């Protein structure tokens, strides 16, 4: 088991290294650096000024050296200005003794965000906190709903309940977040169209709208009113897939010999489902739920942009739009770590839950 873990962690590290290099490469292309120089030093500067700005700020070294600097395995650049002051990557944050020192990811320094004008570590950690709450509620809504739909549908294969629930699951996988989000806003969060004006005229709800279409206020306080729509929007798209896997797993379990034995013994149907089938049917959905988490990231970006909720996804979007290199790199490191960690957990959990599989 230990060897298996070590090997998995090793592969993870290599993967993370490759991926961050790809991101580094794509964000540091000459054309992108030019955009960066123009956003930082003024949009109308000439090509020569762009070149000198890049040179002054250490962007003219070879790509690999700068990647090493960012990682913290190569000493940061230093440079003597015409007036004798010494500037450098590490001097700006460590003071004069920073000349020749390493400052990068390994030293815990994530860089400086040009979009938010704050240290990247700070930006990422507060935004991740906000997204953490969103994800928590998404999982609280999504997982039980998906499991119940899947189990009820798979309990009696081919029945009318099964057919309608399966169709519902298919429909939910066919509705991406930017479609369901738009539908929900138009239907529930508009004061002129949809349900809200109707409910107001009946006097059912006190406010102008049933739910709020903008989740920014959820940063201060999460309420049913401002958080329902973003949570439902993400949960709905992820739910269908998990429900279908649960259904497939449940139908397979229900045809097993021991279920037939239990039935012949005279065990009641609810008892069969709850005590005999459920435990074996939940192995496959568990791994799928774990693997679904990185997949939800897509939805998180879309939903946070759509409902203007300043979380991790919104930050990623802003970083990408403004070519905020160091923030984008940090965000991709976080995203890649989430993907790889959930893969690892799902592998370990699968082995743990299913005694028929041994790691060696």
């Amino acid at each position, binding site marked *: 088991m230990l060897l298996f873990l070590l090997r998995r962690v090793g*592969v993870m590290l290599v*993967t993370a290294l*490759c*991926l961050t290099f*790809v*991101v580094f490469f*794509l*964000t540091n*292309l*000459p*054309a*992108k650096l*030019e*955009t960066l120089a123009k956003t930082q030093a003024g949009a109308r500067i000439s090509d020569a000024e762009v070149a000198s700005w890049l040179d002054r700020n250490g962007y003219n070294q070879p790509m690999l050296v700068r990647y090493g600097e960012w990682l913290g395995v190569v000493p940061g650049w230093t440079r003597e200005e015409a007036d004798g002051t010494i500037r450098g990557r590490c001097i700006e944050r460590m003071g004069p003794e920073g000349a020749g020192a390493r400052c990068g990811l390994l030293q815990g320094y994530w860089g400086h965000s040009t979009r938010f004008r704050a240290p990247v570590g700070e930006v990422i950690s507060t935004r991740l906190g906000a997204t953490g709450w969103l994800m928590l509620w998404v999982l609280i809504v999504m997982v039980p709903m998906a499991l119940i739909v899947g189990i009820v549908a798979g309990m009696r294969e081919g029945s009318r309940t099964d057919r309608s629930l*399966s*169709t519902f699951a*298919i*429909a939910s*996988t*066919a*509705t*991406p977040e*930017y*479609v369901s989000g*738009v*539908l929900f*806003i*138009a239907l529930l*969060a*508009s*004061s*002129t*169209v*949809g349900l809200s004006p109707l409910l107001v005229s009946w006097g059912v709800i006190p406010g102008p709208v049933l739910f709020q*279409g903008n989740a920014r206020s959820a940063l201060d306080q999460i309420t049913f009113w401002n958080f329902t729509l973003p949570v439902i929007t993400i949960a709905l798209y992820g739910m269908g897939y998990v429900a279908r896997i649960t259904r497939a797993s449940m139908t397979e379990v229900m045809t097993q010999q021991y279920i037939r034995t239990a039935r012949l013994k005279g065990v009641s149907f609810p008892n069969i489902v709850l005590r005999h089938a459920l435990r074996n049917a939940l192995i496959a959905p568990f791994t799928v739920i774990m693997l679904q988490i*990185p997949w939800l*990231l*897509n939805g998180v*970006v*879309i939903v946070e*942009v*759509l409902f203007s909720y300043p979380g991790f996804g919104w930050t*990623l*979007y802003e970083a*990408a739009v403004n*070519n905020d290199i160091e923030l*984008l790199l940090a*965000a*991709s490191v976080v*995203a*890649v770590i989430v*993907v*790889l960690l959930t*893969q690892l957990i799902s592998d370990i959990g699968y082995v743990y839950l299913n005694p028929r599989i041994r790691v060696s």
Partner: protein
Amino acid sequence: MEELGWLAIIGRIAQQLLPVWVAMVIVFALSIRFKRRLGLYGKLFDSNVGMVGFAIVIFWIFTAIFADMIITHDPLAQLRGMRNAVPGSPLASPGDHYPYYLLGGDSLARDVFSRAVMGAREVLTIAPFAAMISFMIGISLGLPAGYFGGRLDTSLTFLANLVLAFPVILLFFLLVAPEIQETAIPVVMAGILFLVPVLFVSVLLNARFFTQPMKRNLYVGAALLVGLWAYSGLAFNADPLGVWGMRANLLNVFVAVVFVNAPTVFRIVRGITMDIRTRDYVAAAQTRGEGPWYIMMWEILPNARGPLIVDFCLRIGYTTILLGTLGFFGLGVSPESPDWGSTINDGRRLLTVYPHPALVPALSLMSLVLGLNLLADGLREESLKD
């Protein structure tokens, strides 16, 4: 003139869609008449779910084909006084135009109905082809990985996992940007990715006909000629006759979508190949002395077609969703483009006041993907029945 009521709007839309109804009725009548002779496709008409899915899918396909006849206005034309007009509004000054905006106008006073119809064409020209190329790449790499195993398998699987570990949205932000279009990256990637289908078809034909050199030379030569011709046009925009070609931003989108999809297909094909490799008919072919490519292409692949066809339908749907995501973030599309994703994005600013410009493309996209998923479900059900 008066504003149209909902019934009148539906009636007029149905009238505009007349060519689609006619084509659908013909397809359904012929298919149901001859369904016993049409193999898996014919069996689709035994399942209600499959039939509904198929109906939705061909509805959109015919809408895309007959888009020029269906639209009531130029999708880019901005008519005076029609900004954010509600569905069924009469034109302020009709002239020789169609007298109504059937589904209203958007924030730039363009006709929502015509844009949604043209959007279908936009989506349906990219999604199936992107899915097809992803499939050819996945098959060409997945077959040898699953069949030979060993170091080839390990390295290809590592590469596939590498791409899959990338959050899709991040990859899109990085890969589909105006700055990237100016570099050689999309062209180089297209050069590699588009070469695979040409090689795939050539190897496929060569493996089948290498015992008859005359026939082989003819088929492989023809395939290479057409393939390389299309390849030069699509990947490098250097088609000498100018038939094939792709705009830079479209190529960028295409490459990104294929790049995201191919590893998943690879994993599926690899898994199926590893399973089928142990069957008796493969052992028989090996004993006969058939070459590895013949066995892969003509023994294993045809027997893996069931799950692959089902996944192909799902993948077109997923590609449609990805294209919508790209449009939603305004990546890689020209600003006036009527494709559904960017139309939703344009419409969401005034969503709470004028929902129709965003709702129409949103519902269109949803119904197309739903149709593809139902079709896949029906096909899966029917292919499991044998």
